[in-house]
């Protein structure tokens, strides 16, 4: 905690010292700073969680350099959040910090911490496995921790092949004992358990082939290494959950078929190493109505079906309770949503979505809206609501955690 604060102070200092324009040597400096207010209308479900207000501040400077011939790039993007309520949400990370070489003959080499996104669907990021989720940021699994890697990309006529060697495993962030949006017990992030010995130093490998064939965009990936998704075990006498990181092997495919105003999307994985080998998939569509209601607005309609065959029920072991596979909320769910883009000069847009558990009818709802203010500010509203939550559903821990977030960001 004290270490985080010191790092944040250094970061803030760096921003005010650094030049604000692209200066000599072609170092470019930019970034963003945001104030965020989260409000939970209902009091906390678990003792020691805070009630109602959660203000916080984030800062993300962006330093980049490129050689004259464009072949050498250096990017450094640290990130920090200072949270008034949850000590674990106050954290720093090197989102990106890498050197990249771009050769003339169709290959690119990246060394350092970076972010990589794989996938096509919207409701869950199933095949996206390179980066660890920064889950204290949001529960949508879209915020990621920087992953140290060596990445070789070949961009050929036959498609793109990316080869990864990943080291310096990142453990998942979890809300602290004071924090909302957590399980009944807080996770002990200081004491992660690795499947065999201390595998924190283990190296992970991944490869991905991607290309497009007419209207089809296809990605095929394999991953072998430490699971980004931990199992959470409860030791009987303990008051917390221990994250357990298994060694897994995962194969995946993601596709999109684009025709007219339709985007047909699918993702599927097969994973071994967490109990029995299991299959999971998401499939659906996005259909856009252009210039609706006689305005320049675009209305996108989304629907996706989520299936996950993993066995994540509790089993008893001599030292406590554990599971074969990490918990998931997506065994058998349907997501529907609508996205409205106003196509105005402020890029105003809104997204609303609802997920229904097909087995117990638990509902979670999401509303997001954003708009640029002037040239250098954006305002965002986000809300998540949990309805009709079945006591047996994973979301039961969040049933009193409906929230509304307002975020104001200044870009510089």
């Amino acid at each position, binding site marked *: 905690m004290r270490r985080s604060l010191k790092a944040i102070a250094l970061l803030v200092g760096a921003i005010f010292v650094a030049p604000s324009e692209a200066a000599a040597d072609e170092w470019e400096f930019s970034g963003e700073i945001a104030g965020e207010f989260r409000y939970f209308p209902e009091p906390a479900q678990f003792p020691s969680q805070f009630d109602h207000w959660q203000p916080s501040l984030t800062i993300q400077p962006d330093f980049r350099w490129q050689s004259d011939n464009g072949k050498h790039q250096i990017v450094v993007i640290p990130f920090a959040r200072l949270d008034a309520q949850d000590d674990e949400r106050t954290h720093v990370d090197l989102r990106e910090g890498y050197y990249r070489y771009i050769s003339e003959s169709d290959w690119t080499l990246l060394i350092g911490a970076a972010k990589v996104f794989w996938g096509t669907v919207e409701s869950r990021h199933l095949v996206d496995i390179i980066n660890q989720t920064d889950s204290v940021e949001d529960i949508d699994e879209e915020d990621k921790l920087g992953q140290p890697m060596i990445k070789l*990309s070949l*961009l050929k006529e036959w498609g793109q092949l990316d080869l990864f060697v990943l080291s310096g495993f990142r453990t998942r962030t979890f809300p602290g004992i004071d924090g909302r949006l957590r399980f009944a017990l807080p996770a002990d992030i200081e004491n992660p358990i690795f499947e065999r010995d201390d595998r924190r130093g283990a190296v992970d490998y991944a490869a991905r082939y991607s290309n497009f064939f007419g209207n089809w965009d296809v990605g095929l990936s394999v991953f072998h290494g430490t699971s980004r998704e931990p199992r959470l075990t409860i030791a009987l006498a303990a008051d917390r959950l221990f994250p357990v990181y298994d060694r897994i092997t995962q194969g995946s495919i993601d596709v999109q078929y684009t025709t007219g105003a339709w985007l047909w999307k699918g993702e599927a994985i097969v994973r071994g190493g967490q109990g029995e080998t299991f299959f999971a998939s998401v499939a659906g569509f996005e259909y856009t109505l252009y210039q609706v209601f006689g305005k320049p607005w675009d209305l996108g309609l989304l629907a996706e079906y989520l299936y996950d065959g993993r066995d994540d029920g509790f089993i008893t072991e001599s030292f406590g309770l554990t599971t074969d596979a990490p918990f998931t909320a997506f065994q058998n769910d349907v997501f529907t949503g609508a996205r409205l883009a106003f196509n105005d000069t402020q890029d105003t847009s809104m997204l609303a979505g609802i997920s229904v558990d097909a087995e117990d009818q638990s509902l979670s709802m999401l509303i997001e809206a954003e708009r640029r203010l002037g040239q250098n500010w954006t305002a965002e509203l986000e809300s998540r609501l949990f309805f009709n939550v079945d006591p047996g559903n994973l979301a039961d821990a969040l049933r009193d955690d409906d929230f509304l977030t307002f975020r104001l960001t200044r870009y510089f």
Partner: protein
Amino acid sequence: MSNIRSARALRAALVTALFSVSVLSLSADAQDLQHFEDDPAAKGDTPESIKGYEIAARSDRSDAGFGDSKAEANMILRNAAGQSSQRSLSFSTLEKENETVGDKSLVIFNSPRDVEGTALLSHAKILDPDDQWLFLPALKRVKRISSANKSGPFVGSEFAFEDFTITELNKFSYAYVGEEEVDGTQMDIVERFPRYEKSGYTKQKSWVDQEVYQARKIEFYDRRGDLLKTLTLSDYREYDGVWRAHNLSMTNHKTGKETDLVYSEYQFKTGLDQGDFVKGVLQRIR
């Protein structure tokens, strides 16, 4: 130019050389092996349509052999009340291999800051929908997007997506209307009619000068046939036989809104090739 022509193209060039040479009077060094095949469906068979097609072809083909280009641009958006906002963009373009396909292009947003690094890669087609991918820098996500939205506004401006491909010859059929003197310059007036689906226009009316054969003004008529927008193209500069307007001003007559697109100096033959316009390059923009 010659080194990228295949043997097949050379054979075709011999067949068509006779009538194409007369059309090409600009960019002399590119002419010898340059050949074009008129698309009969776009050219039509009435005297008006043939003359309209030939005037449009003369404009479009004066561009041939530009290879690739890079330019920075500022987009200034104004509403009827006079409030304005700005965007800055970088354009890279790779010339089409022949007239049956369109150019490849990459647009990168530099400002506003919240969309900095957002990029749009397009592989333009003639009558089929373009292939387009969007890069979202915050998520590092490359997303194939629908290009069915021809008539939608490009980043909130008065330019529609389809307005960026108005020079592709075979996307339209034509009708010659007449000529007119505007500010001391003799202009041909040609109407053109979109042949591709989902256009927001029933027709466009263009004024093309008779000196360097470039469009100076274009009127856009909406689906009801009413005048919707007017584009004026000015500050034309010549780069080794290739002409580029550096100031494009689009006025929407229904809303009173206006968008200026102001280009900086163009760079040509910068060494870009097919490999710079594949989907994978989006991931190394930011």
